[in-house]
């Protein structure tokens, strides 16, 4: 295997990690949507730790190995239109992910604090937090941006 093959494998592996995290978060948002019992919400949010690791490794990996590939491969340049589009989409994805994370982390933290206080009855405030429409929209927008990234990577418009 050449160095190029390894770079390509690591780049694609990072992209898989990134999408795996988004799938995990999507499943999590769907299953907590109708929950309002603090222990249920806190328990389900435990799986988000795996998503946090995957999103960090995946988003940094696609960027680093992607730029490395663009420099290493003579067919592409970092300033090619489709590469610049990918960099812009990556930034937008990061901004949306950060906003989504803040909203759902607030729901997770509230559930945990209610559990610590020994309050495990259905909680309207907790339900409002897990059903926050802004969180859903930010997450959906993030998924759309990642889809656009994938389309950009495969179709390479202008290349």
């Amino acid at each position, binding site marked *: 295997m050449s160095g190029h093959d390894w770079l390509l494998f690591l780049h694609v592996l990072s992209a898989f990690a990134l999408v795996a995290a988004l799938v995990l978060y999507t499943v999590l948002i769907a299953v907590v949507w109708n929950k309002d019992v603090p222990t249920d919400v806190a*328990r389900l949010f435990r799986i988000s730790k795996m998503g946090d690791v995957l999103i960090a490794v995946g988003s940094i990996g696609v960027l680093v190995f992607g730029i490395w590939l663009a420099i290493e491969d003579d067919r592409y340049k970092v300033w090619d239109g489709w590469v610049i589009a990918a960099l812009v989409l990556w930034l937008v994805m990061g901004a949306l992910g950060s906003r989504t994370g803040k909203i759902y982390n607030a729901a997770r933290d509230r559930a945990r604090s209610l559990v610590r206080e020994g309050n495990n009855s259905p909680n309207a405030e907790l339900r409002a937090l897990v059903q926050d429409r802004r969180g859903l929209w930010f997450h959906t927008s993030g998924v759309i941006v990642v889809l656009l990234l994938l389309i950009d990577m495969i179709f390479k418009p202008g290349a």
Partner: protein
Amino acid sequence: MLAAIRPDSWNYALFVHVLGAMILVGALVTAGTAQVLSWRPGGDAGAYARLAFRTLLFVGVPAWFVMRIGAEWIYSKEKWADVPNEPDWLGVGYITADLGGILLLVSVVLAGFGARRLARADGGSSILARSAGVIALVVLALYLVALWAMTAKPG
């Protein structure tokens, strides 16, 4: 940089194949994580087993079909059937995709029965749910090998 430049008509098939594979891996990671969490003592095994079962059934299985249909589509576009000796990476892809598909189905069935048993017993762990988790993780490992074969294209 996912792949080299190729005709646009091939790209649609590749997009379907890669998207299906990515969602499938995401479903396996989610279900595997939930199953591993269910193994912890006093960790509400039933809820995690249910989550794993539903993720495999409603996300993993449809994604497997999308991945597999995309694979056949790009196979026909690239006319591999006309090539006398197919490259090794293609064989690795076929074996892992189909074997993984069978194991995925086994995992879904075991996860379903395991979740049901845990709900009835209300606590503890189930050998069925544990087996489903192990199989889901084996399928995930198989697909990582497939990912390596598809990108590095050995042979």
